[in-house]
C-alpha cells in the first residue's frame, strides 16, 4: 500500500529496526529489555535462515524433524511477540504530515502501512504484473489480472489436493499417529491375513505342525540334545519301569541300544519317542532289534544324579539304622560330658589363676580347659559359619539372661553355658548338614579353632548330627571325641606359636584368611558377647585354646572386672575383649580394652564385627537387639564398685611365666 503523503515516524520496537526507548516509565522499563529482544530476534532470524538453508541442501529430510524444528521456531516467535506486546504501548506512531484530506483515512493507512522493505517488494511485483498490460485500458487490465488469478487459484487447489493425499499416506493428518488406511491392496491383505492365521495357529496350538503317523520319517541323525535326552541309561529307570507292566510304554523302549549314543538307531528312538503317536505296543524286552541293556550311564544334564559324590549322602531325613541312632546318642552324651569337664576345669582355672598374660607368651600350662577335638574343629567352623546370625540372635537373648546372672557364682555360669549349648544345638542341627562333610582342617587352624563354647556347642551338634548323616560323619567323631584328652589338646595348643595365639584372638575377631575361623570368630564373638566379655577376661590368663570356649561358656557369671583384669595382660584377649570389651571396658570406664586393642584390636574388632557389634550391646544387653547394636551404649549400669576393686586387684598380679 502506498505510503501516505506524510512521513510517519514509526518508532517500532520490532527488530531488526533500531528502536530507542522513549519513555521513562519505571515499571515498564523493566519490561524494556530491548537488548535481549534484539538478541532473540537475531537468533531466531539466524535459525530460520539455517533451516531454510538445510531445506535447500540436505536431500533426506524427515517430516518429523521438519515439523519439530518448525515448532521450535514457532514457539520462539510467539514468545517474542508476547514479550514485545507490553513494550509496544510505550511506542507511538507520530504522524507528522497530517492535513485535512488524509486526516480521516490516516488511521486506516497507518494500520495497513507496510514496512519499507515490504513496500519496495510490492512495487516491484506490481510493476512486473502490469508490465505487459500497462498500456491497455483498465478493464482489459483487470480482465487479464482476473485470468491470472484464476490460473493461480487452480494451481493452488491442485497442490492442496496433492498435499492432502500425501498427508494421509504419511499419517500426518492427525496427531495420534498413523492412520491405518489400507494402502495394501486387497489381495495382499488377504494373503497376509491367511498367513497370520497360519502362524498364530501354529504358534499357539500347533496346527499345521502335526505329522500323521504314516508320514513320519525318522531322521538320519538325531540332534545331540534329543539323542542325549532319549538315549540315556536305562538301567535305573529301566528297572523301575520294568516293574510296572505298562502296555503303552514298553520297557524295551527304554533300553539303550548297544551302539554308541550318537549312532543310536533313529528308528528305535523314533519308535520310543513316537510311542504315543504310533500307539504300537512294542511288547517285551527283546522286541527291538539290536537293543541291549548295556551298562554305560550317560550323565544327565541338570540332574542331581549327575553331580559326582552325591551318591553316598543319605537323605537328611533318614536315620539309617537304630545302631546309628544309638551311636549318635552315645556321642552326644560323650560330648556333653567332655564339655562339662572342660567347663569345670575352666572354672577352676579361673579361680586359681587370674593372671594377666603377656603377648606372645605361650599359654599357661595351668589352664586346663579341654580343647576341642580337632576333628570337631572343622565341623565347628563350618557349622559356625552358617549359624553366625542365628547364634548372634540367640546369644543376645542369652546375654540378657546372663546379665542378670553375672553376679552369681560360677556354678550358675556353668549351668548357663550348658543351656547355651543346648539351645545352640537345637537351633543349628539342620543347617549344619553340609559343613559336616568337610573334615579337613589345618592343624593350626584346629588349634585356633578349638576354642570357645561354640566349639562345644558344635560338638554337641555333631553328636546330634551323627544320626542324620550316618557314615559320613561317624569318622569325625570317634577319633576326635572320645580319645583326645584335654592335655593332648592343650599340648597341641602349646606347641603353637605366638601367631596362633594371635590367631586365637584373631579368630575371635580376625581370621587367618580362613572363613572357618571367621565363623569361629564370629561365634566366638557372639559367645563372648554373650558372656559380656567375661569369658574373654577369664581366658586371658589361660591359654586361648583352653579357655576360650570354656570361659565363654563359663564366664557368663563373671564380673566384668574380672574379665577385664584378665584381659589386661594379653593383647589378644584384650582384643577379644575389645569385641566384647569395647563396651565392657568402656563400661568399666577403663580404656584398657581400647588401648590393648589399639594395636591388635583393629583386625579383631573388625572381625569381631559381629562380636563387636554384639559386644557393643553388652552395655545394653537388656535392650532389644536393634537397640543393642545401634545404641552407643549406656555403660553406667555396668560399672560396679566391687568390680572395679576386683579389677584392680587382678591387675596387680603379675602374669605367670
Amino acid at each position, binding site marked *: 500500500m502506498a505510503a501516505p503523503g506524510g512521513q510517519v515516524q514509526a518508532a517500532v520496537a520490532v527488530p531488526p529496526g533500531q528502536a530507542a526507548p522513549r519513555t521513562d516509565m519505571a515499571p515498564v522499563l523493566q519490561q524494556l529489555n530491548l537488548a535481549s529482544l534484539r538478541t532473540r530476534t537475531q537468533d531466531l532470524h539466524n535459525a530460520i535462515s539455517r533451516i531454510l538453508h538445510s531445506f535447500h541442501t540436505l536431500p533426506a529430510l524427515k517430516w518429523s524433524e521438519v515439523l519439530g524444528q518448525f515448532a521450535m521456531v514457532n514457539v520462539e516467535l510467539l514468545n517474542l511477540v508476547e514479550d514485545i506486546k507490553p513494550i509496544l504501548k510505550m511506542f507511538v506512531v507520530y504522524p507528522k504530515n497530517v492535513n485535512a484530506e488524509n486526516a480521516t483515512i490516516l488511521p486506516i493507512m497507518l494500520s495497513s502501512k507496510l514496512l519499507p522493505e515490504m513496500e519496495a517488494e510490492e512495487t516491484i511485483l506490481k510493476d512486473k504484473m502490469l508490465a505487459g498490460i500497462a498500456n491497455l485500458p483498465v478493464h482489459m487490465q483487470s480482465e487479464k489480472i482476473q485470468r491470472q488469478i484464476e490460473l493461480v487459484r487452480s494451481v493452488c487447489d491442485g497442490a492442496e489436493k496433492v498435499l492432502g493425499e500425501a498427508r494421509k499416506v504419511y499419517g500426518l493428518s492427525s496427531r495420534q499417529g498413523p492412520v491405518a488406511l489400507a494402502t495394501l491392496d486387497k489381495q495382499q491383505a488377504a494373503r497376509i491375513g491367511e498367513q497370520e492365521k497360519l502362524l498364530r495357529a*501354529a*504358534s499357539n496350538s*500347533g496346527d499345521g505342525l502335526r505329522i500323521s503317523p504314516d508320514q513320519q520319517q525318522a531322521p538320519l541323525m538325531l540332534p545331540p540334545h534329543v539323542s542325549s535326552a532319549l538315549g540315556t541309561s536305562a538301567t535305573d529307570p529301566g528297572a523301575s519301569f520294568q516293574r510296572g507292566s505298562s502296555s503303552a510304554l514298553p520297557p524295551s523302549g527304554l533300553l539303550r541300544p548297544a551302539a554308541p549314543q550318537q549312532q543310536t538307531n533313529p528308528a528305535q528312538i*523314533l519308535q520310543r519317542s513316537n510311542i504315543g503317536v504310533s*500307539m504300537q505296543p512294542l511288547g517285551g524286552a527283546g522286541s527291538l532289534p539290536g537293543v541291549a541293556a548295556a551298562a554305560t550311564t550317560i550323565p544327565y*544334564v541338570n540332574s542331581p544324579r549327575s553331580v559326582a559324590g552325591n551318591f553316598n549322602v543319605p537323605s537328611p531325613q533318614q536315620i539309617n539304622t537304630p545302631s546309628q541312632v544309638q551311636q549318635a546318642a552315645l556321642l552326644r552324651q560323650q560330648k556333653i560330658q567332655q564339655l562339662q569337664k572342660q567347663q569345670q576345669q575352666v572354672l577352676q582355672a579361673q579361680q586359681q589363676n587370674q593372671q594377666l598374660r603377656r603377648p606372645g607368651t605361650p599359654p599357661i600350662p595351668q589352664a586346663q580347659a579341654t580343647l576341642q577335638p580337632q576333628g570337631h574343629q572343622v565341623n565347628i567352623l563350618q557349622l559356625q559359619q552358617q549359624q553366625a546370625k542365628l547364634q548372634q540372635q540367640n546369644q543376645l537373648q542369652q546375654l540378657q539372661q546372663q546379665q542378670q546372672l553375672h553376679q552369681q557364682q560360677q556354678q550358675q555360669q556353668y549351668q548357663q553355658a550348658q543351656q547355651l549349648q543346648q539351645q545352640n544345638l537345637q537351633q543349628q542341627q539342620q543347617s549344619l548338614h553340609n559343613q559336616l562333610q568337610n573334615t579337613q582342617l589345618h592343624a593350626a587352624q584346629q588349634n585356633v579353632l578349638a576354642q570357645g563354647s561354640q566349639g562345644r556347642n558344635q560338638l554337641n551338634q555333631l553328636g546330634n548330627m551323627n544320626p542324620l548323616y550316618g557314615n559320613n560323619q561317624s569318622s569325625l567323631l570317634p577319633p576326635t571325641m572320645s580319645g583326645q584328652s584335654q592335655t593332648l589338646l592343650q599340648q597341641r595348643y602349646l606347641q603353637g606359636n605366638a601367631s596362633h595365639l594371635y590367631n586365637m584372638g584373631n579368630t575371635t575377631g580376625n581370621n587367618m584368611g580362613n572363613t572357618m575361623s571367621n565363623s569361629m570368630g564370629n561365634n566366638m564373638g557372639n559367645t563372648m558377647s554373650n558372656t559380656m566379655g567375661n569369658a574373654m577376661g577369664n581366658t586371658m590368663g589361660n591359654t586361648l585354646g583352653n579357655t576360650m570356649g570354656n570361659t565363654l561358656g563359663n564366664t557368663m557369671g563373671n564380673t566384668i572386672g574380672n574379665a577385664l583384669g584378665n584381659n589386661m595382660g594379653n593383647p589378644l584377649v584384650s582384643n577379644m575383649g575389645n569385641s566384647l570389651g569395647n563396651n565392657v571396658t568402656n563400661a568399666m570406664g577403663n580404656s584398657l580394652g581400647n588401648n590393648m586393642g589399639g594395636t591388635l584390636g583393629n583386625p579383631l574388632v573388625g572381625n569381631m564385627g559381629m562380636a563387636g557389634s554384639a559386644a557393643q550391646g553388652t552395655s545394653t544387653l537388656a535392650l532389644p537387639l536393634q537397640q543393642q547394636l545401634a545404641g552407643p551404649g549406656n555403660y553406667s549400669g555396668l560399672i560396679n564398685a566391687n568390680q572395679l576393686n576386683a579389677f584392680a586387684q587382678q591387675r596387680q598380679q603379675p602374669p605367670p611365666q
Partner: protein
Amino acid sequence: MECVVQGILEAKHVDALEVLLQGLCGGLRETIKVHEICLKTGPNLGAVASEVHLCCSLSQPEPVWSVRHVGGAMRGAGAEQLPALVRPVLEAGISNNSLRFMHALGYKLDYEMLRTGFSFQMHKTVPIAVTITIAVTAIHRLPKTHSVDEAQPVTPNLHMVQLTAPASPDNYSDVVGAISGLAEYLAPLVHLSKPGVPAGVVPTASTAAAALISRGGITKVL
C-alpha cells in the same frame, strides 16, 4: 500367571523392530533358538487331556531344558475387555531326561516346532514394576521328527512378535496396562492383540521401518 499379546511382522521389518527394541529396552538382546516339543496325554490317562511343552533352548552351548504348562485363559466379561490375554503358566527347569520321563508317564508327542529369533526385556515401572519380555521369532516346522536341522518356516515372510509379562492374580490388570503401554511404542511397526485374535500388519510399517533404519537427517538447530 502371565499376560500375553501377539502380533505379526513382516520379515523385512524385523531389523527395524530390533532397532526400535534396542532403543526401548537397553540393548540386551538374547538369541532364541528353542526346540519346543509338545506332549499330550493319551485318552487312557484321565478324562481331560493334559498338555505339556518341553522346551530345549539350543542357543547356549549346553542345551537347557525346561517344562512349561500353559493353562486356560482367564474368562469373563472383565477378561474380554482386557487388551491382553491372562493365563496361568507354570514353568520350570528340568534335566535332559525329561523326554523319557514324560514318555514314561504316558505323554505322547503331539507336535513340535523350532522357534528362532531374538528377545529383549524391558523393565517398566509405570504402572507397576514389571519386566516384559518381547520375543520376535520365526516358527519352523520339523518335517522329520526331531530333525531340528531340517526345519522349514511355517510362514517365510511373517514373524511372530510376542509380549509376555509375569503377573499374579491381584496385579494382572496393572501388568496388562504396562503391556499395552509398551504395545503403543511398537504400534508403528506391529499391531498386537490377544493370541487368538488376528490383527493384521501395519500398512505404514515400511515407512516406520525406513525411518528407524535410515541414517540421514538433520540435527536439531535449536
